[in-house]
């Protein structure tokens, strides 16, 4: 499977993401720049974490309006898989590709630590290598990861199994409603999550719990 990584000014996790995709798929992803209006033929597009455009206005707000995001939306509409991690998740909700919003952590503090995630839906293109309900370790590093959706939207995404990851065992680091850490769109081909699975993919990281997500999405053997 071929993958691509979106690179925007202010992102800082793009190198980690490129390394993770290269190690797990065996092929380096192509990189796409903010002004690109066409994305090559790939199976997976990843928007990594960081602070695109300095988090000006709202996290992800400016990036979501750049030409490259129109191209990402077109690919997503055609069924190409899209993953947004951290700032990438914020960009996906700001662009309307995922429902809800990501607000300031209730603690008002930047949190940088490891949390536990429960795989709330293992029947998605991004999680089928995990067991239903499996608890995995994953690092988080963000200031605005407090997921919010109005009651109607929340009932819909919960009812349709769109909540894919939840913070487990009292580890919710940001006040997210229903402990939501990651969601998919209603078609199931766009995933956004605040934690950083790309930083737990090899023993040198201290664990490989994040590999399952990329192995699921890339369709590679465990």
């Amino acid at each position: 499977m071929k993958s691509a990584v979106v690179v925007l000014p202010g992102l800082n996790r793009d190198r980690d993401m490129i390394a993770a995709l290269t190690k797990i798929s065996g092929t380096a992803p192509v990189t796409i720049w903010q002004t690109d209006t066409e994305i090559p033929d790939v199976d997976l597009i990843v928007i990594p974490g960081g602070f695109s455009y300095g988090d000006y206005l709202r996290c992800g707000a400016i990036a979501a309006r750049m030409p490259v995001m129109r191209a990402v939306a077109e690919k997503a509409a055609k069924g190409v898989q899209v993953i947004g991690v951290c700032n990438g998740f914020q960009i996906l909700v700001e662009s309307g590709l995922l429902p809800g919003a990501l607000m300031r952590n209730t603690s008002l503090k930047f949190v940088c630590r490891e949390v536990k995630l429960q795989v709330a839906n293992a029947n998605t293109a991004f999680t089928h290598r995990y067991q239903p309900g499996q608890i995995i370790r994953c690092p988080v590093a963000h200031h605005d990861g407090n997921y919010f959706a109005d009651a109607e939207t929340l009932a819909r995404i919960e009812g349709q199994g769109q909540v894919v990851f939840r913070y487990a065992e009292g580890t919710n680091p940001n006040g997210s409603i229903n402990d939501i850490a990651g969601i998919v769109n209603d078609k199931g081909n766009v995933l956004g999550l605040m934690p950083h699975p790309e930083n737990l993919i090899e023993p040198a990281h201290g664990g490989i719990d994040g590999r399952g997500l990329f192995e699921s999405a890339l369709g590679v053997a465990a």
Partner: protein
Amino acid sequence: MPVIKARVTVTLKNGVLDPQGKAIEHALDSLGFDGVHSVRQGKVFDLEIEGTDPAKAEADLKAMCDKLLANTVIENYSVSIT
């Protein structure tokens, strides 16, 4: 070219938790301003727009709010031509 001056105010919708507003409320309390029941933080944008037609400017400003200045999932906005 004549310009129209306008102010856009963006506020959080009711029911959306505002941790920053809460922190400000507590800070006011610690400064001795007791009796502050609620603080909600928002944003103000002052814009200058080419043109002479206030109705067109207002329509444009609302479109700007819907597309960028506000996140209507969590925020309301109001537009005033000054």
